[in-house]
């Protein structure tokens, strides 16, 4: 017999999420992800001067505002056919990297792990240790992570004034040229954060985690909070839970003069190919949106105020060449070719996603140290960019949760069209015109629903493994 469960409010995700589950014989047989909130940022932009996008779009999201900044700045630079001053690009990458790194940390300690501290796991060999570390608001790990997070955000305070809604990243570079002194101070904060990561998260040098090359090596990892996660994941079968579509996309993270620090590409059937961004289409069949399926450069945002019954979310359904793709830290590391991530590509479930995020924490810290070392304080950090009155541009970046794109058109010096496809729009999309569920909807099928559970733990693990950012999804 099939029953229906309506799950919400779904907390410890960014923004609003409701999931309708169909359940039979103790398993999810179908899932429908609803983003039940619509603000309309894309429409806010129309008629404004193009540079206002740099101030407005970061405010789409309080957890990845720098990602939105970076995408808007790249889209404007593309419109102008310009590039940031090389040192400005390095500082922008540093700011963006700090945000992504701390997003992963927030997700692990505050959003994902508290579920293992729940009473439903009482009696498991690891439960008391997990409770001591991750009990919401109380755990020793939680508090250590919050303190380390606040301290590393000093980098953004110094270079960008404040976080979130940092306005330092501009089309031609960044608003503050760091001095030699600033560089030394940032180095001290990064070193402090490395100490935290090595003491608490990994219980070992970062490089040791970075050199893991296969699943067996990962499973032997026993130190730090990463070890505790892997123990709980093993015991609860998270490797086999919540498999994604197996198609992984990354726009490539951190554009610097030498290229992107993490490669761009599309991984499918064991090989990486190029991302054909012209093949992106947003399908509106199950979204409360009016209009036709379109590429974002031709898309529009007209909410269906009547909220027609055959749609169920404010989220559009992006598809690449007609197919769903998964985006996020795991996808990025697979596309970048890291051996551990590639080894996890086939597993593709909850454990793989969280391990991918841990791997990216280690690799991002190492990358940021390198970025800082390469900054030359004596050089200019901003170039002059003149925007044309008519034209279009695209900015593609990687937010913590995955691929983020801004597409804008300008006519007569004013924004005539602005479309955004956010990472969670990819992962949490509703069904498309062919009835194909979005990645999370598909990943939830098969999740266990225990007798009496109205918010199944397995469902929570799957959803949170994607680290959804619902306010970005619907913007």
């Amino acid at each position, binding site marked *: 017999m099939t029953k229906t469960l309506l*799950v*919400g*409010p*779904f*907390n*410890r995700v960014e*923004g*609003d999420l*409701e999931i309708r589950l169909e359940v039979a014989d103790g398993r999810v047989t179908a899932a429908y992800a609803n983003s*039940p*909130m*619509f*603000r*309309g940022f894309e*429409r*806010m932009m*129309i008629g*404004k*001067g193009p*540079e206002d996008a*740099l*101030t*407005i779009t970061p*405010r789409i*999201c*309080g*957890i990845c505002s720098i990602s939105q900044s970076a995408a808007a700045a790249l889209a404007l630079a593309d419109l102008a056919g310009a590039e940031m001053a090389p040192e400005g690009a390095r500082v922008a990458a540093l700011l963006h990297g700090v945000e992504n790194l701390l997003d992963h940390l*927030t997700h692990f300690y*505050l959003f994902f792990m508290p*579920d293992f501290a*729940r009473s439903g796991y009482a009696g498991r060999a690891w439960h008391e240790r997990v409770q001591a570390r991750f*009990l*919401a*608001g*109380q755990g020793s790990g*939680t*508090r250590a992570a*919050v303190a380390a997070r*606040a301290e590393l*955000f000093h980098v953004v*305070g*110094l*270079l*960008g*004034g*404040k976080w*979130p809604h940092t*306005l*330092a990243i*501009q089309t031609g570079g960044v*608003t*503050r*040229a760091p001095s030699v002194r600033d560089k030394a101070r940032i180095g001290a904060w990064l070193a402090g954060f490395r100490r935290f990561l090595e003491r608490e998260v990994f219980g070992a040098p970062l490089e040791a985690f970075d050199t893991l090359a296969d699943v067996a090596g990962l499973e032997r990892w026993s130190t730090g909070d990463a070890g505790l996660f892997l123990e709980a994941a093993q015991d609860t079968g998270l490797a086999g839970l919540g498999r994604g579509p197996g198609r992984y996309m990354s726009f490539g993270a951190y554009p610097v003069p030498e290229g992107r620090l993490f490669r761009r590409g599309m991984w499918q059937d064991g090989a990486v190919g190029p991302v054909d961004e012209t093949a992106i289409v947003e399908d509106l069949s199950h979204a409360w949106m009016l209009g036709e399926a379109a590429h974002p450069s031709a898309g529009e945002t007209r909410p269906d*105020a*009547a909220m027609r019954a055959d749609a169920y979310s404010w989220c559009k359904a992006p598809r690449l060449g007609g197919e769903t793709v998964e985006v996020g830290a795991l996808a990025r590391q697979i596309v970048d070719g890291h051996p551990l991530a590639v080894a996890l590509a086939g597993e593709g479930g909850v454990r793989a996603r969280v391990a991918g995020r841990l791997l990216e924490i280690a690799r991002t810290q190492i990358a940021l140290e390198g970025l800082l070392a390469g900054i030359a304080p004596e050089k*200019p950090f901003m170039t002059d960019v003149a925007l044309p009155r008519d034209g279009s541009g695209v900015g593609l970046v990687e937010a913590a949760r995955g691929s983020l794109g801004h597409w804008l058109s300008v006519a007569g010096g004013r924004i005539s069209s602005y479309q955004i496809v956010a990472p969670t729009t990819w992962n949490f999309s509703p069904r498309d015109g062919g009835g194909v569920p979005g990645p999370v909807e598909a990943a939830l099928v098969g999740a266990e629903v225990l007798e009496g559970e*109205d*918010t199944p733990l397995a469902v*929570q693990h799957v959803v949170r493994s994607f680290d959804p950012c619902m*306010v970005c999804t619907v913007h």
Partner: protein
Amino acid sequence: MNVLWLQTAGCGGCSMSLLCAEAPGVFDLLDGAGIEMLWHPSFSEATGGEVRALLSAIEAGEQKLDVLCVEGSVLMGPGGTGRYQMMAGTGRSMLDWVRALSAMATHVVAVGTCATYGGVTSAGENLTDAVGLQYDGAHRGGALGAGFVAKGGLPVVNVAGCPTHPDWVTETLMMLAEGVLDTAALDTLGRPKFYAENLVHHACPKNEFYEYKASAEKLSQIGCMMEHLGCVGTQAVGDCNIRGWNGEGSCTRAGYPCINCTAPEFEEPGHAFAETPKFAGIPVGLPTDMPKAWFMALASLSKAATPPRIGRNAVSDRIRVPPSPKARS
């Protein structure tokens, strides 16, 4: 004192900013002040049915609610239904929930400029009819109505800012817990005076440039940003440059103009954010509490008297001419 925190139509950034509280961190601070978080969407374990039960108990008067914090605008649309934001799992709009729970709370705190005045969520054509709790832009009204007074006797406490500084929120909560935040402690727009009686201009490191009207012409130059780059730090309330953000930051310290994010309708300045509107070459938005003629007279004098050190540095991206040590006489 217990607190329930709801996120309406905002970006979650004020919660994320709250996590940046330091010395002590937010969890230690709340513990120390005897403040218990009944539920927070980002930090709490409770989810789904557990939360619905809590909300029902508050609504039914079975669970006392000392403070309701609301982060984000309230969406009145479409057509006054509030259906642009439904609270997941409940079949009810956030508009409905906010009204129901506000009626039960001793104090209601609007966290951030979306919740106070509508903020960025109400920008542009505002097709969702986003408003603040007690204000619709600069006008009283909003989701709870102009005359709303919480059980404890205060109107909505407006901790405006986009985002809010973590200390503005924690200090407001601590003052409520102590019973020392009364109507006299709020300014005319409902903001706590402890931060709203300062201007962003106070302690701005560009003050020496301001004194001489030595102006930056482009972003990334270190001069005063009032004349050309849209900075309204001389008119915006906030102690941003006194207490600092994220260690030692502020928008102006990082070379970005103050956009007055603690004020109603900052999201629609009527000009580009980083551009100063001018009439006949003279900025329109001069400091509000100074006669324009005096300002013009002083500005032209100080411009004429600008030392070369300050004039040259103002249009550079770093200090090019250091101050010369005073010779001993």
